[in-house]
């Protein structure tokens, strides 16, 4: 495998990791108004993602950084072509981050409610924006000569962007529900599982449709098999959830995302930004890539750094592995009741 292909795979891995991890953060946030009717429930929900969301967000920073580092031609074509959606993603992530921190910095109920709503709204905007950007970049953008967008500010926003947005949102919401059923105990666990059971079959459809379309357009037999794996994973997730095996259901639902993402990236390869104007303007990994020297340097750095990162991030998940129950009462240790 040449270095460009290796880095395409690395970028695909980073985006998949981001969606897999930050997906449940988005989902839990989106479910706050649905499953968190009372403040105590909302606090419990937020405590499940409290120690994790910031580390998960770094997957996005690293994914975008890796696109810039390995394929500046992709980075410099993709971001300006979808200028406004990316700005909205940033807006959503900014308000979400400060809301996480500020929500508990002042103890009136109105304050708490406001920032809890901001967490939900920011997460929805960010998830939809990222989905739109990924949908558009895999199914085509109006790219002309020199990687420059043709048309106005909204010319990149067609149905592929909409499909991507809905796919990521729907996946994340159910992912968040399964995560809650895995990480909590008591009534919330039951409610989250019930929600996931009801919505999982529907929520998988947009993601499967997106992956299927990319496969039909550019795919190979291998990506076809991957797509089937994704579709099967939905059934497995649903069946495991039904019998109350939340851990296995979480793995299966996550496996669905991994298989769907593998279908999308595998089918798109080696094109990173297909042009809807003329295939001659497609940006491929060869057009977009940096020199072999730089890729070699990056390969060494990532080869040593990434396993270490995965190691300590996995370890923090292990530290915070216990199921959480009701809000800690006054005089009780925070988040320690198993």
């Amino acid at each position, binding site marked *: 495998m040449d270095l460009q292909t290796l880095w395409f795979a690395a970028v695909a891995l980073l985006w998949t990791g981001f969606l897999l991890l930050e997906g449940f953060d988005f989902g839990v946030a989106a479910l706050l108004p649905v499953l968190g009717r009372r403040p105590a429930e909302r606090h419990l929900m937020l405590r499940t993602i*409290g*120690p*994790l969301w*910031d*580390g998960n*967000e*770094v997957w996005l*920073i*690293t994914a*975008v*950084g890796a696109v*810039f*580092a*390995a394929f*500046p*031609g992709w*980075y*410099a074509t*993709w*971001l*300006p*072509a979808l*200028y*406004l959606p990316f*700005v909205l993603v*940033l*807006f959503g992530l*900014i308000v979400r*981050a*400060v809301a*996480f921190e*500020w929500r*508990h*910095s*002042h*103890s009136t109920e109105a304050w708490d409610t406001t920032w809890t709503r901001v967490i939900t709204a920011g997460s929805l905007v960010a998830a939809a924006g990222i989905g739109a950007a990924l949908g558009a970049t895999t199914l085509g953008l109006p790219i002309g000569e020199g*990687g420059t*967008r043709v048309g106005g*500010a909204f010319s990149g926003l067609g149905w592929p962007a909409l499909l991507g947005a809905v796919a990521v949102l729907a996946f994340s919401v159910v992912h968040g529900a399964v995560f809650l059923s895995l990480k909590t105990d008591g009534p919330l666990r039951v409610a989250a599982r019930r929600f996931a059971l009801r919505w999982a079959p529907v929520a998988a459809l947009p993601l499967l449709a997106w992956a299927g379309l990319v496969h039909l357009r550019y795919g190979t037999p291998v990506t076809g098999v991957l797509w089937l794996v994704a579709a099967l994973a939905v059934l497995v997730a649903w069946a495991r959830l039904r019998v109350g095996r939340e851990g296995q259901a979480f793995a299966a639902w996550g496996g669905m995302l991994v298989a769907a993402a593998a279908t999308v990236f595998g089918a798109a390869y080696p094109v990173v930004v297909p042009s809807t104007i003329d295939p001659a303007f497609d940006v491929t990994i060869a057009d977009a890539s*940096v*020199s072999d*020297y*730089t890729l070699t*340097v*990056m390969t060494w*750095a990532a080869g040593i*750094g*990434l396993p270490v*990162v995965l190691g*300590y*991030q996995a370890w*923090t998940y292990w*530290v*915070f592995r216990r199921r959480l129950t009701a809000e800690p009462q*006054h*005089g*009780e*240790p925070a*988040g*320690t009741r198993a």
Partner: protein
Amino acid sequence: MDVLDVARWQFGITTVYHFLMVPLTIGLGVLVAVMHTLWVRTDKPEWLRMTRFWGRIYLINFVLGVATGLVQEFQFGLAWSEYSRFVGDVFGSLLALEALLAFFLESTFLGLWIFGWGRIPKKLHLAALWAAVVGSIVSAYFIIAANSWMQHPVGVEVDDTTGRPVQVDFLAVLTNNTALAAFSHAIVAALMVAGALLVGIGLWHLRRRELAGQPTTDVDHAVWRRSVRLGGWVSLAAFVLVALTGDWQGKLMYDQQPLKMSSAEALCETEAPAPFSVFAWSKLGSNECDDVHSITIPGLVSFLAHGDFSSAVPGVNQLQEEYAAVYGETYPDDPSRFGALAGEEIDYTPLLGVSYWSFRLMIGMGAVSAGVAAYALWATRKGRVPTSRIGVYGSLLAVAAPFVANATGWVFTEMGRQPFVVHPNPDVPVGEQTYFFTAQAVSPGVTAAEVWTSLSLLTLVYGALAVVELWLITRFVRRGVTTGDHAPDHAAPTPGTPTEGTPESREDDDVLQFAY
């Protein structure tokens, strides 16, 4: 304004804003880690309370730094796509390595520190904070190495077909002398920011307690006193290092970007010895060096540039001619690459007023900070408690001084590099140099309306966040270390029981502050 101007304002506003949080994160992170270490080692309750009080401010600030830092990584692509294409072989890898090697460390271990109180062994919990702090410092190194490469591109060769730099020596990029000087300067400047905060807030609390007749023997008194002493000594030591590293950086800059330094001095003609300008005034709106009048100290600039009081330092007028001879009198007449500036004359002199005054504000505010630190140490000597209204409120106000110094330092560095976004390296023979004009860096397909939208949105959000952030921090600071109606010793740690819920179990409010 066209896309270029709006995009420049956007970059300036978002970057200066982001850099209000960054030095506090770096500096305060180090000091909180020191406090936490001292608590683990001595078990003295004041160190625990200091860790938690200053740690809380550190976290409120940290999250805003993270949130605004996101914009930075995206806007190179959003608004500056031609820049990103041009520098891609060097610049992107530094950003990616920053994320991989620093941001993961920072965010993962900070999460562990916040939620790990009483859940993981005491020493491991301390190590988590240190890991996060090391992450911040490593991140500063990578991003400053990236910036320094724009100031002084090394380790590259120009590709004949694309005209873009191709990396040939990654180690040279990492050990760029510009980066080493700027990194050390930025880190010690960050410590000055944290030191000033400890001094200002500590003095204010000491005075308030004194006026309220509270005892000087309890733990809370020790908290504020130790904060002032620690902050004062750190500020003073950091100021000495800021001066030394700044001098190093300045001497490099006289070689690498002579126009930046001559503009900072409003030195129009080449002079030997060259004087240092103390105060200057000019015709409003003029960027002509000859319109500037100065009061000067003879020979000082020669010393700053070359370490003696007699060497010649080139003036703005000569340098402008030299640059025009090498890099062209006018921008190439190609509107698709140079926009409205295509075919226009190139002004190689950065805005004189900005260079001159940002340079002086940086130095002046740093000196103010050091003066306040010296005052605070003197006023609290041998257990004294200062009650001077002017002294204490002046110190509180002076918390802003090192922030201003940091911001103006960056304004000077970045605007002094104009009209280049990547400044040519003078050690490389002309013709083989890597350089790029800011005018050609902007995204060609993006409309001014889009950039206006993001500029307005981000400025509004940033403004609102600043208001809430200041309100929260002020409120938190006023409340002090112990909260509510608790007796002062309520939060005393139980030595040797690092297991479940050491401090949370005793401070209701802190439960909400450190957990969700």
